[in-house]
Every structure is written in structure tokens, then in C-alpha cells.
């Protein structure tokens, strides 16, 4: 499948943290043709295994990109059928007003997010954010009708279709971290044409947005020799400090800091330079807010890497990603994996 198509399927779908199963078939069927084994674990992580060649030492590399996305959840139904909601994952309430949503009950219902109109507000209120608790979802049905389809606890997705902007840029919701899944997918395709030693586990993790929960358990299960998280990084825009951001279209950020194994990182940089793959440096001194954090501290500790795909307007419904960055991430991952053998790993891990 073309990676643009795959990205479209993933972002247009719904996989709010804890309810990722709606995408299971899409992801499994895409990876399946390239894998030796694929299964879904207890918490819902999709684990796809692609075996290496002559891997007598049982060398294991785990890649993790999270399949969950931020979203909303029904917490209360008003007497006139309006829905009150809470957030799942980090959402700036200011990005919600005026959005169209799908409430996933026993049937999917369309609705819009509203609040008090400006005409009825004091001038002083106009400069204040409308709180999430003061917003409602209008489904256009009476309470009686709403309760036929919707229950407390049902998840809600912002309705947004992936759309092409200029050049190779695409905009949509949940490109964080569907872009990472697509990069893994492109990587597994690349690896199918290559020789490498390690058994590679491509893990689409769950519940990253609520605390990397899926990465903890899947890493425990796989117990890899190397863990690589593929997530998104802050794309540069004028209002953000340059040092916190990555430029769009200039390759993935290779994270540097305490969460990252220095020897493995050097190898990643060497490979990028050797194959002329553009990359940027992302500095995160402490734990990254990615699955790499969970991987690092599982069991006896696992050396980890983190690649960040530049993404603008993170956690809004108009995130932007550049397809060139996704492709370069995939390429870098594939060449990196091919460069790792049981023989050289010990040297790379040596402090």
C-alpha cells in the first residue's frame, strides 16, 4: 500500500487511547504481508515480528510508534440531550470550540461543539478561554434519543479528513503518531529487500498519550536488546523557541539526552551520514515524553533511541507533517537495523 493511503486510513479513523481496537484490522492487515508473526497482546498493542537472518544469538530490536490518539469522552448527558465531555490525553481547550465530532456509541453520531455565543458574554470574558466544562456537544437529538445510542464513557473523535497542502505537506488530526506507524510500515517494506541479523519487532503501542502505558507492557513482553521509539517532534513555527523545534522537511530529529543510549545514537548518526539521509538533533536532557521513556526503564533496563518526525501544531486537529520526513525516518531506521549485529552490538553499547 502507498504510504499516503495508509496515513489517510489511519488518521481518518479513530483510536482514542484505550479504544485503539478500531484500527486493529487496518494496521494488522498492512503489516501482515511483511511479517513472520503478528499478534495483539493483553493491552491491545499490535506486535509484528520480522525475523532476521542467521540470528543465532536471538538479537532483538523493538520499534514502537503509538497507535492511540488524543480525544474526548462522554461524561454527562444534559436534560436536553447535550453532551458534556472530558479529555483523554493533553488537549488545549481552545482548540475545541466550533469543531465537528463523531461520538462513538453503539452507533456513530455526528455532533458539533458549542458554547455560549459571544453576544451573550461580557466584554471581559471575550479574552478568556472557554473552559472545557463549559462546552457542550450538540447531537441534535433529545436526551431520550441520545440515550438510545450513547453511554457515559463513549469516546469522541474530532472529525477531520486528511488533506494535502502545498508540496509534500499533509494536514489532519492524530498525525501524532500515525506518522510514526506509517514510518514503521515504510521501514518494514525497506527491510524486506535487505539483509539483516536482528529479529525486529514493530510495535504499534496503545495508551501512549495517557502515560506510555502500552510501551511498558509490550517492552516487558519482548525484552529487546535495543528499543527505538518513533514519535513526532515540534515542527518549527515563529512563536516557538528555535531550540525546542525541528524544521519541516529536513529529516527526523535524532534525540540526544539521558533517555538515549549515546553509543547507539552515534551509530544512528554515522548511518545517516553514510547514506546521506538528512537528520536533525533534538536535545532532551531528561526522560522524553515518548515510549522511549517506558522502554528504557523496563526489566533490567533497555538501551533506547528516539526518532522524532517534525510535526507542526501538535495536539490540534490541524497537525502538519511532511511526507519526506516520514520517508527519511523509515530509510534511516532500515539502514540502522541492517548495521546492527550481535558482533558489533557489544561495542556500540560499551560506555
Amino acid at each position: 500500500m502507498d504510504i499516503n493511503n495508509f496515513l489517510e486510513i489511519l488518521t481518518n479513523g479513530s483510536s482514542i487511547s484505550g479504544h485503539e481496537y478500531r484500527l486493529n484490522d487496518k494496521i494488522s492487515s498492512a503489516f501482515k504481508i511483511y511479517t513472520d508473526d503478528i499478534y495483539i497482546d493483553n493491552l491491545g498493542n499490535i506486535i509484528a515480528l520480522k525475523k532476521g537472518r542467521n540470528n543465532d544469538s536471538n538479537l532483538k530490536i523493538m520499534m514502537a510508534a503509538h497507535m492511540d490518539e488524543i480525544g474526548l469522552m462522554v461524561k454527562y448527558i444534559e436534560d436536553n440531550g447535550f453532551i458534556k465531555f472530558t479529555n483523554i490525553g493533553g488537549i488545549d481547550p481552545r482548540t475545541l470550540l466550533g469543531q465537528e465530532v463523531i461520538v462513538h456509541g453503539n452507533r456513530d453520531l455526528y455532533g458539533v461543539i458549542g458554547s455560549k455565543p459571544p453576544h451573550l458574554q461580557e466584554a471581559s470574558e471575550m479574552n478568556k478561554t472557554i473552559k472545557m466544562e463549559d462546552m457542550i456537544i450538540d447531537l441534535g437529538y433529545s436526551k431520550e434519543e441520545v440515550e438510545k445510542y450513547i453511554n457515559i464513557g463513549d469516546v469522541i473523535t474530532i472529525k477531520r479528513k486528511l488533506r494535502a497542502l502545498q508540496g509534500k505537506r499533509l494536514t489532519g488530526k492524530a498525525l501524532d503518531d500515525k506518522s510514526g506507524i506509517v514510518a514503521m510500515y515504510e521501514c518494514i517494506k525497506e527491510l524486506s529487500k535487505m539483509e539483516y541479523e536482528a529479529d525486529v519487532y514493530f510495535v504499534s503501542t496503545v495508551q501512549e498519550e495517557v502515560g506510555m502505558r502500552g510501551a511498558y507492557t509490550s517492552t516487558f513482553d519482548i525484552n529487546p536488546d535495543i528499543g527505538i521509539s518513533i514519535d513526532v517532534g515540534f515542527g518549527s513555527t515563529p512563536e516557538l523557541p528555535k531550540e525546542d523545534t525541528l524544521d519541516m522537511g529536513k529529516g527526523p530529529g535524532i534525540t540526544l539526552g539521558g533517555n538515549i543510549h549515546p553509543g547507539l545514537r552515534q551509530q544512528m548518526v554515522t548511518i545517516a551520514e553514510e547514506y546521506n539521509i538528512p537528520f536533525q538533533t533534538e536535545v532532551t536532557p531528561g526522560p522524553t515524553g515518548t515510549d522511549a521513556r517506558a522502554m528504557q526503564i523496563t526489566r533490567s533496563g533497555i538501551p533506547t533511541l528516539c526518532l522524532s518526525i517534525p510535526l507542526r501544531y501538535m495536539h490540534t486537529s490541524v497537525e502538519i507533517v511532511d511526507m519526506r520526513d516520514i520517508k527519511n525516518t523509515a530509510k534511516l531506521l532500515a539502514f540502522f537495523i541492517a548495521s546492527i549485529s550481535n558482533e558489533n552490538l557489544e561495542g556500540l553499547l560499551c560506555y
Partner: protein
Amino acid sequence: MLLKKLTEASGISGNEKEVRDIILDEIKGYVDNIKIDKLGNVIVYKEGKNHSKKLMITAHMDEVGLIVTNIDALGLIKFVPVGGIDKRILVSKPVLIGKNKIPGVIGSKPIHLQKKEEWEDALGIDQLYIDIGVDTEEEAKKLINIGDYISFDSDFVEFGENLIKAKALDNRVGCSLLIEILKETKDIGFYGVFTVMEEIGLVGAGPAAYSVDPDICIVLEGTLCYDVPQIDKHLIPTYLNKGPAISLMDRTTLFDTNLRKKIIKIAENNKIPYQYRKTAMGGNDSGKIHTSKDGVITTTISVPCRNIHSPTSVMSKYDYENAYKLLKAILFEYEKGAL
């Protein structure tokens, strides 16, 4: 569907051409005289029995939106609002820019890089910009010009029980009512006027009223609706699904009491549900019309719209249908000379 076509067209105040063309195309053959005046108002006359009183029915064609003011070195587009837009609804929305409808998005700073206090303040227009996916001013300028109008990218959706979501329901819903009544009535002589630039200060209505010089005017509108259970009843401007709203007063007009009472009688006689528009906030073309020349008797009949002036306005087909019935019943009385 007519309303779909009308709401999906772009017609930011001062740039109503797309909407005007749809209207002209719809009504041609159904009216006896069409004139586009110097401001862009569409003034049509439908011949019929002569009356001592001259009736004008108006609806404004324009909608609120944005306009390009600058393109920066990174190809990001700065804008200002056209008409009353709550700046808080702009973040995280897709938009379409200019005649070629170039897609772009209004993003915001990632939540991860914000302090919690930052959330409490609404983002100002000066903090927002549109990203069309280019990296340089040069690339952007090949596609976009300063002064291009920007509309929300929001399609027409039917949902729930009888509801419609669209942008620009204020006031394509009025245009749609006026088009339909122009097409359907026969032998009733009246003026239909589609005005420009209502949202930026009732610009088109005054000159149009001056030309037509009517005795009575009915303004068709989409009006604000906020009907949540927590709010005190007297503060609810209008409800959805309770029929067309008849205005008492707003910031621009104290509507004529006798005309209002006659209209309510017509509604009651015909068993058409109606409600009062209970807020004094807002204003519409009537402000300029009722003070034109030696004065005009006016009323406003509105279809309630939740989330007005946003990309996701919501109205009820039931209210629309009843507004139409009421309008028809009024014309019937007018024909009898009873207005």
C-alpha cells in the same frame, strides 16, 4: 439542495460575487426585473396586484470571514477578521483562501510547550496565522495575494433530528427563504433585495432601501440561539425547534409593534409555531432600512442558529419550514391588503 449550495459558496462581506451569481441563476425567469446596484445589492421586483403599500423583503448575502493582510518570510499568512468573529473559534480550523480556494490551517502552539496559565487567555488574532504548507514568502505569493478573502472550510451536513450544520447560515438561510418565496409566489407584487456587507456595518441596506423606498420591510435573518438547560429562561435569546423568531428589539431597531402583532396573529391563525427573539443584542439591516428617507415600518423574522458566526452553525429544518410558511401567510395577507 439550495441551502447547501448557498452555504458552501464563499461570500465574505465585500466579496459576495459567488453567492450573488448563485442567486441570480436561481431566480432568473421567476421575477420581472433584476437590478444589481452600484454596491452589489441585488434588487428584484415581482409584478402583481398593485397595493397602496410597497413591500420589500430583504436578506443579506454576505458572511463573516477573514482577509489576508500579510505574508511573512516563512510563507505564513497573517489575517484580520471581516465582521464579528469570536477569535476563540479560529484555532485548529481548516480554511480556504482566495478565488482558487487554496487550503490552509490555523494552528497553535503545542500544549506541551505551554504553561497552564497560557490556556486561560484566548489567543489574539496577532498570535494566529495560516499555514499552507510552504516554506517561503516567494512560494506563498505564487498562490496567495494580500487582500484575498478567506472562508472556513466547512461542508453542509444534515444530522440529528432534522438539523443542519454549515458555515454562513447567517444569512444564507435568509437568502434561501427569499429565493424560494420569489420562485413560488404569483401575482403578489413586492421587492426582493439581497444586500451586501451587512456584517461590516449594514452597508448595502441603506442605499437599497433608498432606491426601493418601501413602506413596509421584512428582514429575513439567521439569529443567535443559545438554549442550554443551565441558563435562566429569560436569558435565552431563542430556542431551536420552536419556530421562527420574531424580533422585539435589537441594538439597531425597535421593531414596529403593530406590524409585529399582525404577524403574530397571522402565525396563530395559521397554526404556525413562532417565538420571540428575546435579546436586545445584535443588529441587522433593519437598522438602516427603518430610518431610510421618511422611515419604513420593519420587522425581522429569523431562523435560530446555534454557534452563529462560526464554521459550525446549526439550525433546524423545522424552523426553516415554519419560517417559510409564516412568510407565505404574511404575503397572502398582504395581497388581501390586510398588512
